[in-house]
């Protein structure tokens, strides 16, 4: 049998051929088990081995012959270097576009309120995004019918696919397994589907609503190549958009009013959690964030979002859609996605764009949504605030929203932020086609707290009918000024609940507290490592060095062991995802103050947010996905930002034992 050798294996074979035949060195190809060089005495039971897994060979020598093993390893390394010269080509740009594709699709679909009113148009747009992934892709959206058949609702293929039995083919598999499937080899994994006759690769993802598979998005390609996790990421995003569209449509035609209301609440709170609210950033250097988002029975369309810009610049938007129910929530989601779009400083292929002023961002969002909002007869109040930690300023644009509060630690006083820029009030979005938005800047100092909220908070009613009111919010803020931001909003929520008593709370309660924590830790030690063997061990030595450099050595052995693990995971994440296992430099900075140790990992590779990693399974069925879990278990804060000039910044904070807080 002749072996087809890789460039590396060919190079190694050439290097091995001049060795004397009696030398007891064996080199085996791991995959086929075949010998590239057979050892003269055959296989021995007790032997020493050195594998190079990524190159697919194992070296074997008799036990104790370390010198011979060294020789073998140096030949392997030389062969690898020779082969590497051949392998340096293509594939660089591909990953760069990853995050941009999914994001722009969501902006495009979720960002157009008119599309939400026409399911067919919206689904067509979903499919357009899927097939735009690569030239030559064809695709279809299938819906499961009640009679156990499936039917195409949208397709981008010359012949419309024919309805069929739901157990059939790749769609049947996706509906059964309720997960995305990629098949890159012809003729396995899909059946006799006529539209797939000439396909060489197929990818499909389920449309999941309330845990059930309602249909599937299928794409295929007749050309050579392979689909990858990047495409699956896009399909998954698109499917959740499509599921939302379908659910809304199903509700519209749902006849029974009671059932409709129940579902509406369920979907509304889903929308609220996923689209309107999203994740609270754990911490921004110098700031502490607390959020409260209590959805009412009638969904209200309150939304908030956070945008990191790096260099201590951090934006918040909090908005409230007038009106209730799913339509209000969908409008909220659409408007929020427009804020996301205009606040984002990440352009195509991860390029860094200049950061616009808050008033410019609000004006751009207004231009985008006002026409549609006026048509729909809705308007949105919002406040957009930018914190600049280095300058010590907060700049905000108030679009007819409730006045934010500012507790100033130096004078122990709460200010109501209701300055009218140039003597006039900014209008809510969707009030008028032509309007101007002005911004106001206020300075802040250490210990100050800002509170942003929607009117559900101030308009909560007591049994007697009186409002909770802004004064009560302000005095709750003054009383809670020394608490952590999250404890403060929890406290305010508790006070509102007690105030309402038996009446209950009928609106959404939405509130964000931002506390200025004072002096950020200073950088004390730094390390730069390349992605080469041994660099992870270097990272661990650095961690040990840092731990013993902190005055009073607050961490003992067990903590240092944990820090070793967390930093190894974070650094290998960078090498894997930012540099895709290739060459690249990682800068590691250690900063500390009297209460915490903060590591910053900086790299200039592909944008990658580890928070998007899937949670791990603990039943032994998967080997991966534990890294981010481990970091979160060990560290108090784990945060990712894409900084200026295309730098990825991971921050890992460990509070000193006894100073964990919260």
């Amino acid at each position, binding site marked *: 049998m002749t072996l087809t050798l890789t460039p590396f294996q060919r190079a190694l074979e050439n290097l091995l051929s001049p060795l004397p035949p009696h030398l007891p060195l064996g080199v*085996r190809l*791991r995959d086929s*088990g075949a010998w590239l060089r057979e050892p003269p005495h055959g296989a021995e*039971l*007790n*032997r*020493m*081995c*050195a*594998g*190079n*897994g*990524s190159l*697919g060979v*194992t070296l074997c020598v008799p*036990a104790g012959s370390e010198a011979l*093993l060294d020789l073998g390893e140096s030949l392997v390394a030389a062969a690898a270097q020779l082969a590497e010269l051949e392998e340096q080509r293509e594939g660089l740009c591909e990953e760069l576009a990853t995050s941009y594709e999914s994001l722009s699709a969501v902006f495009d679909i979720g960002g157009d309120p008119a599309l939400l009113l026409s399911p067919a148009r919206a689904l067509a747009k979903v499919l357009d995004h899927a097939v735009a992934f690569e030239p030559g892709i064809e695709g279809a959206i299938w819906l499961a019918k009640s009679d156990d058949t499936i039917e195409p609702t949208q397709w981008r293929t010359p012949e419309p696919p024919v309805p069929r039995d739901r157990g059939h083919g790749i769609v049947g598999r996706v509906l059964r397994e309720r997960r995305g499937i990629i098949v890159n080899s012809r003729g396995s994994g899909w059946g006799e589907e006529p539209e797939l006759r000439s396909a060489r690769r197929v990818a499909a993802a389920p449309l999941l609503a309330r845990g059930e598979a309602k249909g599937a998005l299928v794409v295929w390609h007749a050309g050579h190549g392979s689909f990858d996790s990047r495409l699956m990421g896009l399909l998954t995003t698109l499917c959740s958009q499509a599921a939302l569209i379908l659910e809304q449509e199903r509700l519209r035609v749902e006849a029974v009013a009671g059932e409709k209301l129940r579902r509406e609440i369920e979907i509304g709170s889903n929308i609220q959690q996923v689209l309107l609210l999203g994740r609270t950033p754990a911490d921004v250097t110098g700031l502490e964030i607390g959020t409260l988002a209590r959805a009412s029975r009638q969904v209200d369309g309150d939304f908030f979002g956070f945008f990191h810009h790096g260099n201590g610049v951090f934006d918040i938007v909090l908005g409230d859609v007038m009106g209730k129910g799913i339509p209000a929530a969908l409008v909220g989601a659409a408007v929020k996605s427009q804020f996301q779009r205009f606040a984002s400083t990440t352009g195509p292929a991860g390029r860094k764009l200049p950061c616009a002023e808050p008033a410019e961002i609000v004006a751009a969002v207004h231009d985008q949504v006002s026409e549609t909002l006026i048509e729909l007869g809705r308007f949105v109040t919002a406040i957009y605030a930018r914190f600049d930690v280095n300058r010590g300023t907060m700049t905000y644009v108030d679009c007819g929203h409730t006045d934010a509060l500012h507790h100033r630690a130096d004078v122990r006083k709460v200010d109501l932020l209701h300055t009218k820029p140039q003597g006039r009030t900014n209008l809510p979005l969707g009030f008028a086609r032509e309007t101007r938005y002005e911004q106001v800047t206020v300075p802040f100092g250490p210990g100050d707290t800002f509170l942003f909220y929607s009117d559900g908070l101030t308009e909560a009613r007591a049994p007697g009918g009186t409002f909770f009111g802004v004064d009560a919010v302000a005095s709750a803020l003054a009383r809670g000024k020394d608490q952590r931001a999250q404890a403060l909003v929890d406290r305010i929520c508790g006070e509102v609940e007690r105030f309402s008593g038996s009446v209950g709370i009928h609106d959404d309660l939405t509130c964000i507290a931002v506390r200025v924590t004072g002096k950020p830790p200073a950088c004390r030690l730094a390390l730069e490592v390349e992605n080469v*063997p*041994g*660099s*992870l*061990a270097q990272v*661990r030595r650095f961690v040990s060095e840092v731990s013993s450099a902190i005055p009073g050595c607050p961490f003992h*052995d*067990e903590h240092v*062991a*944990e820090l*070793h*693990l967390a930093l*190894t*995971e974070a650094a*290998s994440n960078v*090498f*894997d995802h930012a540099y895709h296992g290739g060459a690249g430099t990682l800068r590691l900075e250690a900063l500390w103050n009297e209460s915490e140790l903060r590591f910053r990992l900086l790299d200039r590779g592909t944008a990658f947010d580890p928070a998007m990693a899937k949670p*791990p399974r*603990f039943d*032994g*069925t*998967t*080997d*991966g996905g*534990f*890294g981010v*879990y*481990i970091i979160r*278990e*060990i560290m108090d804060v784990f945060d990712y930002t894409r900084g200026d000039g295309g730098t990825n910044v991971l921050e890992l904070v460990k509070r000193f034992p006894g100073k964990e807080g919260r």
Partner: protein
Amino acid sequence: MRYVCETVGTTTVVTLLDDALDAQNSKEFRRSVEAEVRDKESVLFDLQHVRFMDSSGLGAVLSCLRLIEGGGGGLRLCELGPEVRKAIELVRMDRLLDVYRNRAEALAAARDGAPTLET
């Protein structure tokens, strides 16, 4: 990545010679060692030299575990250092793995046919 592979009775003993099993050598470990332990009825990983293991190292051990158990065999570990033990506990793998203090105890258990995994 270096290791010694020996046969003691019916057990294949793999002793890792590197002091860490992390993202930079776990792939290699997985590929080389999987070939050694495939279809073996009893396997012991002696981790006396391994001072540190991260999630990819744990993943490689898990993948060997599945491979060995899939072939009807059993995997045992011995000589775990405190950092390795800590990592295993963090991802709750202590429930899946059969851990012994030292090689003698692990080999005795293998000889007596003690179950390698209580489920």
